[in-house]
């Protein structure tokens, strides 16, 4: 009896929580005329790719997809590489003043991006980078959170083992690549996924530093698609589905890593 009630409650929760995601995916493949029927429109019986095709005719979605992909790859690769380098130095290199450096890192996390973006906008514009792909990812190629997570993982690696490897003639890079990273693989994967998702989903900053449709990221693109074609619901939802699908697939493939990484960040 009690478990029946719990099931009813959970099913109700799933319907409410998952409905918008269902609506995005179903609506993307359903003609607007059928969606406009209201409740009947929720039944997926008129599936077509027409919305997706028309969406790419309104805005340069392919081009914007490419921009978002470039931003995501550059931002993630740099954030991970710079994060590994900094965490390695902080944990292993016996530097003086690591506590002070650590406080600087902590304090950088207390400065909201929404405060600094006015000045960052001026910096990027003085470098003549407005409306380019590098403008979108440059300010975020280092992340204090990534450094923290790598540091946390590196701390569990025995320092004597590292000294032995280096005294035996392994270089720093060789040690990191063939001994350290294999041991901290779960952290490596989760940091990569978390920073890639954040890069892909960015909205405020990309909106500010790009202005021609060809240089927009796809997140900004679908917002403008929704603005331009507000009454053509199928096209709007096709845009939403196209930005959501890549993340959905990656998360489904790597769910256990993602969960571990995010909670590690929260409970640091």
């Amino acid at each position, binding site marked *: 009896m009690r478990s029946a009630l*719990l*099931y009813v409650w*959970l099913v109700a*929760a*799933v319907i409410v*929580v*998952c409905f*918008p*995601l269902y*609506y*995005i995916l179903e*609506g993307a493949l359903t003609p607007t005329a059928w969606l*406009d*029927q*209201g409740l009947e*429109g*929720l039944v997926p019986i008129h599936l077509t790719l027409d919305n997706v095709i028309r969406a790419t005719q309104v805005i340069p979605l392919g081009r914007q997809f490419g921009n978002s992909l470039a931003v995501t790859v550059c931002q993630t690769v740099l954030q991970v590489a*710079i*994060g590994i380098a*900094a965490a390695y130095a902080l944990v292993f290199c*016996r530097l003086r003043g690591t506590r002070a*450096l650590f406080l600087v*890192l902590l304090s*950088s996390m*207390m*400065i*909201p991006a*929404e*405060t*600094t*973006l*006015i*000045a960052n*906008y001026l*910096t990027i514009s003085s470098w003549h980078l407005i409306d380019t792909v590098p403008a979108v990812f440059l*300010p975020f190629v*280092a992340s*204090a959170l990534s450094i923290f997570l790598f540091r946390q993982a590196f701390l569990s690696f025995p320092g004597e083992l590292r000294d032995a490897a280096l005294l035996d003639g392994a270089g*720093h890079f060789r040690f990191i690549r063939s001994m350290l990273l294999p041991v901290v693989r779960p952290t490596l994967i989760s940091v990569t996924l978390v920073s890639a998702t954040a890069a*892909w*989903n960015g*909205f*405020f900053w990309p909106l500010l530093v790009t202005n021609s449709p060809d240089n927009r990221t796809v997140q*900004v693109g679908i*917002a403008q*698609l929704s603005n331009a074609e*507000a*009454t053509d*619901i199928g096209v*709007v*939802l096709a*845009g*939403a589905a196209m*930005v*959501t699908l890549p*993340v959905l697939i990656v998360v489904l493939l790597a769910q256990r890593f993602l*969960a571990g990484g*995010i909670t590690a960040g*929260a*409970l640091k």
Partner: protein
Amino acid sequence: MSASITAERRVAVASRRVSSTQSWLRSDRRVGVALLVPAFAVFAVFVFYPLGKVIWLSMQGTDIFGQAAGFVGAKNFVTIFTDPQFGATMLRTGAFCLAVVAGRIVLGLLITIPLTTKLRGIPVFRALLTSPMVVSVSAASVAFAAMLAPGNGLVNSVITRFGGSDIPFLTSTQWAFASVIVVTVWGSIGFTVLLLLGAFGAIDNDVIEAAHLDGAGPLRTLWSISLPLVTPTLFFVVVTGAVEALTTFGQIQILTGGGPANSTTTLVYNIYQSAFGAGSANFGLAAALGVVLFLLVLALSLVQFGVLEKRVNY
């Protein structure tokens, strides 16, 4: 004779080893410093310098092109704090944060607690109920804009079919604010559930069983054992959720553009409007608003580090 040679050799070898260890340490430090340079250079250029620049800009006047035009002291702050609009914006921002955080905590617990029972099929429910996490702010906002649209929008077409009248969810001062709150809570519920699942999962099963043996029912166990044990995570959700709500932008930009009649303009949206809004490039004023935002986030972060560090470390 031979003994003294051995001793001398030993000293020589030992001193060579010490000096090579020292030089090795020195080169290790040099490498370490070099590896820190990229990260700290990025933070210097894109976090700390901009903070200083924004504080400096907040004390500058602005010419018609939005460029800094001379020191004006606290004038921008006086303008902000004497503007009745600003008071209204801050109250709205506070109400928004409270509503979003309360929504996240209440819904998060109502969804997570049944997920911690040992029913069949729980992993499927967990995956489904954390799935909103994959939807970006932009995608969620355009989907909700479509659902909440007047006339043919899904929600209104259902309301009118059952005899109700069209509700202007996004275009009336009465509804727009609540609509933005609902969309924001929905967007953060997946992550909240994930965090709470982690916290409930970390509770020692022996403690729960001991409570059962002592005759505590499930509700009593939940109230007196489980909830107190997850308070550090609840606190984390409250503080980081407040910072997240405070810096909300995409939902407001896409759903309402701050309107109607400023009814969804929060502090961050006000920064955007002052600096980049049509025809009103005022970087000095925007920077002053940015400083206010920084102080609020700083206060919340200090509370978090102060309280959370103590709790987590016992």
